[in-house]
């Protein structure tokens, strides 16, 4: 309408934005400090100044875990889109389109296999940028695929949730992913294979109240928000302020709900040691340091099984 709002403000905004192009610098959510993105990537998305663990993308996560950062993604079975024909302020199908446009991967979960410390491993990692990592039918199917693959390859299963919970737009079918995901992890357990969970920020709602809390070993990332009910819901119910550090990984450790809180730099090493201890019952297999490529991988047949 006027000169100030139409012309001056956008110009100023553009100037400010040019100072900090968002693809070069990242603001630390903990301290507000600007961190050079390259440096952050090299540091596995841990703030070099405060140690704050920023969210890491699903693909970056896989790269930090597998030997030499190499893994094979598994194609996931197709599931029904929009079974309820759900519409809130927006159609669910439109939300899916938006999410697909914004994301390289077209669902809230990725399933990969490869080797960790020379041993085969299957990893299912949530893709938080895809609709908040919410668990609908496709995610349930992804977990089942991962579990079947782990059983087939006789490999440990690592699941890494990062999810606000159930996908409301799939209604009751989302709720049904709670038992379905538990059937999945029980298949792995019954095959005598380790099922390890890495709880990352956030793990809440129907995701935390199902497969995520049933790991043989439960590891949490520092500072991650983990809990059943949302903080706002609890505050509204009890009408009091919540205690300091409520629902953080450290809080869960304190209350006996997880085995350990592990810094991202020590994660791969810790996981390999655990897999080793649980599966190599004789003398220890050699544990690789982070991203070491000296191990002779050719000696181990690499699993190339496809998902059913």
């Amino acid at each position, binding site marked *: 309408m006027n000169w100030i709002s139409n012309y001056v403000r956008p110009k100023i905004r553009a100037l400010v934005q040019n100072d900090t192009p968002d693809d070069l610098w990242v603001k630390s959510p903990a301290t507000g400090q600007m961190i050079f993105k390259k440096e952050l990537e090299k540091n596995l998305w841990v703030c070099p100044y405060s140690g704050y663990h920023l969210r890491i993308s699903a693909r970056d996560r896989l790269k930090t875990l597998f030997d030499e950062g190499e893994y094979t993604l598994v194609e996931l079975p197709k*599931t*029904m889109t*929009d*079974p*309820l*024909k*759900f*519409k*809130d*302020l927006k159609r669910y199908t439109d939300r899916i389109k938006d999410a697909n446009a914004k994301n390289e991967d077209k669902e809230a979960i990725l399933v990969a296999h490869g080797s960790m410390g020379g041993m085969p491993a299957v990893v299912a990692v949530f893709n938080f940028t895809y609709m908040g990592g919410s668990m609908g*039918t496709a995610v*349930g*199917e992804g977990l*089942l695929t991962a579990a079947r693959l782990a059983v087939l390859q006789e490999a440990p299963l690592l699941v890494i949730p990062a999810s606000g919970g*159930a996908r*409301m737009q*799939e*209604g*009751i*079918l*989302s*709720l*049904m992913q*709670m*038992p*379905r995901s*538990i*059937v999945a992890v*029980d298949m792995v357990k019954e095959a005598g294979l380790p099922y390890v969970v890495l709880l990352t920020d956030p793990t809440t*709602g*129907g995701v*935390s*109240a*199902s*497969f*995520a*809390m*049933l790991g043989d070993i439960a590891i949490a990332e520092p500072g991650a928000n*983990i*809990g*059943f*009910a*949302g903080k706002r*819901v*609890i505050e509204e*119910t*009890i009408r009091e302020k*919540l*205690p300091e550090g*409520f*629902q953080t990984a450290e809080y869960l450790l304190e*209350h*006996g*709900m997880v085995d350990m809180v592990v810094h991202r730099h020590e994660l791969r090493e810790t996981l390999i040691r655990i897999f080793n201890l649980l599966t190599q019952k004789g003398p220890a297999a050699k544990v690789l340091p982070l991203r070491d490529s000296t191990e002779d991988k050719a000696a181990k047949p690499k699993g190339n099984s496809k998902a059913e």
Partner: protein
Amino acid sequence: MQNFLDFEKPIAELAGKIEGLRHLDDQSSDVNIADEVSKLEAKADKLLRQTYAKLSSWQKTQVARHPDRPHCKDYISQLIEDFTPLAGDRNFAEDYAIIGGLGRFRGHSVVVIGQEKGADMHSRVKHNFGMARPEGYRKAQRLMDMADRFNLPVITLVDTAGAYPGVGAEERGQSEAIARSIEKCLGIKVPLISAVIGEGGSGGAIALATANAVLMLEHSIYSVISPEGCASILWRSGDQAKEAAEALKLTAQDLEKLEVIDEIIPEPLGGAHRAKQTCIKALGDSIERHLKELLKLNGAELRQKRRDKFLEMGQKGL
């Protein structure tokens, strides 16, 4: 005094008129009044029939939460003989939101577990409005283990707004308690029959409802989130609960189409609370039928079929 829901206002008005005329009738012996009463009663009946034949999802939500609706205890006292309540999770506390114990259902020794909302202010507070803490779900696991050990079928009655959201509940592992309870449901080698008698609220409900047969009363609801919760997240305002209730497809009729539940138990005209005994008996009959079928299977089959049932879900849309 009967409680009427907001959409029952015309019915309530008629009921008020009938009541007034009856009062007059006590004092005089006018035949016309008796006539008028029966006419009005027929009208009220018709209105009730019309209203309840096309309840919206939100109206069903209201009926499912009706304060006079029969609750878990009513079902147990009418259907279970020699009910022997068992308390405690052997770890921290007794949670009155989930009641459970041994009893005899139509000739079968069974374990019964269910959420109890309470019937008056005092009992509602005692039962925490049917919202269980981790101890409730751990007690449920303990009872399911016992059922497994003694080869007793398990009947669960689901009626909860959801698991309790509180600081203590989080500290003591609400998520883990629910997850283990679902895992226990999936693991036991005895028949497990679950009935949603009022509200099937999210994780708090599925923790007891991962069953061989899942039954729902005609006007009960079962949902991943309450309409209010869904509205406040997706519409950013709790006022859109009606729209959310429609969108969530939380009625027994929708869930049957989605093949998530096995059977709908018809309710008496005007909802379970208008003829409690009839409704409770109807559910008992259905449970008995399912139990008879399930008792033909051995433990491994029961367990496998339960798993397969949940694995097959999600192939049918609306």
